[in-house]
């Protein structure tokens, strides 16, 4: 039985307001769709495709608060008035019906304790204090934060902060809640906590959830519908399985979006002739479809062992008995680690485990409290800072923090001019970089007005243009879609192939699985594991201690072929070999 719509969007078009007042190109064009009450809907789209703009229009932030022009209608189902044009409701009334959780929990926490944070909106809407207390308890219970009422918001982890922000929204008991990439700033354990909280809310509360999320492996299984935002248009809603069945590979290959690994494998097999009538949304369904009676074949273990081993050359960076403290307690304790040329080393661990601190010790931003960091055999403390940072380039998570010039061209040229290259040579090298990164057409624009993906590529380019020995990146693919992430990682791989050592800090285990040659796992300031990704994801005790999670393919590939595999393409090839050339139908 279909339920009444909670949102009806009719032929809706939206234009941004420009600072100079001229007409900007449309951001959304002739959008029409309906969302039923109580549904969970995944909003998919490339970075910069208009997902957040759509969400902000549904909430009413655009155009009411930040301007812009719109045409068409957005109707909301009001409990008493029925379907009503959003504009006929007062903002306060509207926000109590439709609310939104943003990406970064730091941007939305506005008080100093958890209970005040959850109560904040209720107090603003003049709710009787006697009714507020039970709502706080209910909301905290929903997000799994019972017992956190009195805690200071300043002392929460990223995942806890995001769950507090979610509780603050739930306490208002809205009819619709929009979640804009709620896990993008979180480590694997924080991501799991938030997704579990969303699942609990979905099951226990009569609420419509609209989720914008890149973590597709977990989310596709949670939602009832999928909406695709592409080139200012909105397609759908679709039933998730039907959507993936019809558009899965197109979405991955042409739009450059992540799709679940189980779906990737199933669709590739289907393309090769294996008949899989029902596309599996998760690893369990894939195993049930392909190998219900146990593994189909065993992959030789030697193949995995050969994938990566510590290089035999001299390390370019050597960390010896390193400890570091900001004043109260050690952040890092007795670390030993080597970084080699031509390798991609992933540093992983929970938020607060010391990853960024370690990376900042590599190029002398911080100096060790005890022990040493040697670069090419010489302690970092013996280098001049200006000289060391040219050899060990550090790239921050937020690209804008790295920009110091007014044009894209000058950003890259800055580092080259410091090397005293001639203007001609500088220009030639900058142009070559801009072409490689597909930024040439933006050469005279301000770096601040590029899209997120372009900013990230530029921030990498301006640090690697001077050809450093080591490149250290903090969350290189943060906020990027599949295609952008792939391109960036390919750029890093080519730097490694040219002889640089690439060290990247990440929470994205798919990235580690697909690209890292080695990983170092930090937990509470100590390295608890060093080795290749296969060994890491096959060490449950390390994963549990450092609160990491293997990508889903690691688990379901073991059940399919008897050995864990980390790359969907590799697994697909193996399965194709197993199934042979003749087509086969699986249930």
């Amino acid at each position, binding site marked *: 039985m279909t339920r009444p719509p909670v949102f009806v969007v009719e032929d809706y078009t939206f234009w941004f307001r420009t600072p100079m007042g001229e007409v900007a190109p449309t951001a959304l064009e002739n959008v029409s769709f309906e969302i039923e009450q109580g549904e969970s809907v995944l909003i998919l789209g490339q970075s910069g495709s208009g997902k957040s703009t759509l969400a*902000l229009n549904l*909430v009413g*932030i655009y155009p009411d*608060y*930040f301007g812009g022009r719109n045409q068409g209608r957005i109707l909301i189902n009001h409990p008493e008035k029925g379907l009503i044009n959003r504009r006929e409701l007062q*903002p*306060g009334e509207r*926000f*109590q019906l439709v*609310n*939104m959780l*943003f990406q*970064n929990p*730091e*941007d*939305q*926490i*506005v*008080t*100093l*304790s958890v*209970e*005040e944070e959850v*109560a*904040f*909106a*209720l*107090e*603003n*809407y*003049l709710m*009787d*204090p006697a009714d*507020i*207390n039970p709502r*706080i308890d209910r909301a905290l219970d929903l997000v799994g934060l019972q017992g956190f009422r*009195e805690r*200071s918001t*300043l002392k929460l982890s990223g995942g806890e902060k995001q769950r507090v922000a979610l509780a603050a929204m739930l306490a*208002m008991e809205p009819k619709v809640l929009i979640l804009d990439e709620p896990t993008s700033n979180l480590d694997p354990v924080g991501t799991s906590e938030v997704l579990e909280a969303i699942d609990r809310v979905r099951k226990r509360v009569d609420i419509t959830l609209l989720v914008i999320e890149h973590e597709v492996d977990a989310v596709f299984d949670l939602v009832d519908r999928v909406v695709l935002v592409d080139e200012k248009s909105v397609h759908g809603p679709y039933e998730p399985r039907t959507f993936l069945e019809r558009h899965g590979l197109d979405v991955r290959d042409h739009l450059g979006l992540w799709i679940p690994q189980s779906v990737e494998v199933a669709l590739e097999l289907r393309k090769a002739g294996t008949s899989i009538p029902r596309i599996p949304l998760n690893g369990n369904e894939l195993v049930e479809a392909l190998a219900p009676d146990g593994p189909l074949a065993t992959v030789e273990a030697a193949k995995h062992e050969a994938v990566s081993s510590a290089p035999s050359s001299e390390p370019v960076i050597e960390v010896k008995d390193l400890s570091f403290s*900001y*004043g*109260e307690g050690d952040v890092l304790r007795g670390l030993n680690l080597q970084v080699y040329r031509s390798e991609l080393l992933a540093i992983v661990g929970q938020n607060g485990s010391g990853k960024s601190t370690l990376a*900042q010790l590599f190029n002398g*931003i911080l100096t060790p409290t005890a022990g040493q960091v040697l670069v090419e055999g010489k302690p970092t403390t013996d280098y001049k*800072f*200006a000289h060391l*940072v040219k050899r060990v*380039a*550090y790239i*921050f998570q*937020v690209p*804008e*923090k*790295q*920009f*110091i010039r007014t044009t894209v061209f000058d950003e890259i040229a*800055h*580092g080259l001019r410091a090397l005293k290259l001639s203007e001609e040579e500088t220009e030639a090298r900058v142009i070559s970089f801009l072409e490689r990164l597909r930024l040439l057409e933006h050469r005279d624009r301000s770096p*601040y007005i590029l899209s997120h993906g372009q900013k990230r590529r530029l921030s990498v380019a301006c640090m690697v243009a001077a050809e450093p020995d080591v490149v250290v990146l903090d969350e290189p693919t943060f906020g990027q879609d599949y295609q952008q992430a792939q391109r960036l990682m390919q750029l890093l791989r080519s730097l490694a192939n040219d002889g640089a050592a690439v060290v990247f800090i990440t929470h994205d285990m798919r990235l580690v699985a697909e690209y890292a040659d080695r990983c170092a796992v930090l937990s509470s300031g100590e390295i608890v594991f060093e080795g290749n990704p296969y060994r890491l994801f096959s060490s449950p005790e390390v994963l549990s201690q450092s609160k990491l999670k293997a990508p889903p393919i690691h688990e379901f590939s073991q059940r399919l072929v008897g050995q864990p595999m980390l790359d969907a393409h590799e697994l697909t090839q193996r399965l194709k070999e197993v199934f042979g050339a003749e087509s086969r139908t699986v249930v």
Partner: protein
Amino acid sequence: MPNLELSFREASSPFHRMTPSSKLVFVIGVSFVAIFNTNMWVGIGLFVFVLLLAAFATSVPLKTYWSLGKVILPFVIILFVVFPFFYSGQATTGSDIIVIRTPIRDLTWADIGFGSLLAFRFLAIGVSGLIFAFTTHPSDLVQSLSKRGWDYRLVHAPVLGLVLFPALLEMGREISITQRIRDLGQDTNWFKRKWVRLRHLAFAMLVLGLRNGQTQAMALDIRGYGAHKTRTFMRPMINNRAGTIFAWVFFILSVIYLILQWDPMTMQWNMQL
């Protein structure tokens, strides 16, 4: 990053039980006496008094006061060391006769007393301010002031500041590191480099601050901040009669003392000298 947290400490001390308004009256009383008092012994006594209150009536360890108080210590030491050399002429009065006593052997006990008085003045005000910060729940302060007719958005602003300040500091630190890494202003002299870096820091902080500020404004708006002229408060309002009596008695005694010691001829702010 080192943690410098100027915020409420949960406890149940006499000061925690006082209303924010009573504590404000107390802090104003301390500040009046500290600023207008000219007797060094009263200055020392006032500092010892607030220090004893901090130690025994706030349930906050003195170590916590020290961790923040040490920030103003260099300023206090400068007052103590430098100002005795200006005593008698009293540079602050705008008098024609400004006596700068050099060398050191010319200093009198009165000169040193003058420096000490200034130092203890800021110590007493500083400690009383910290007592207020450590024992006043921000929500109680907002509630107390908004019930007295202040706009709650205005009085909530300092709370927002406390929440957002650490993130702003971190942003500034990272931009400064970037400037060093990328050697901004490399081809100029020291002064110009400092200027170029300061200008860039201001611009980058403005751009990133505006962007974050926009999200924060949205987060506040969609949670009804400013939707109504007033708001309710979940926390029950503190109402402690003993605390109120203590604060007002202290304030009245302060005023009486200041009236009794009033002598226009010795007051530092007397422009008639």
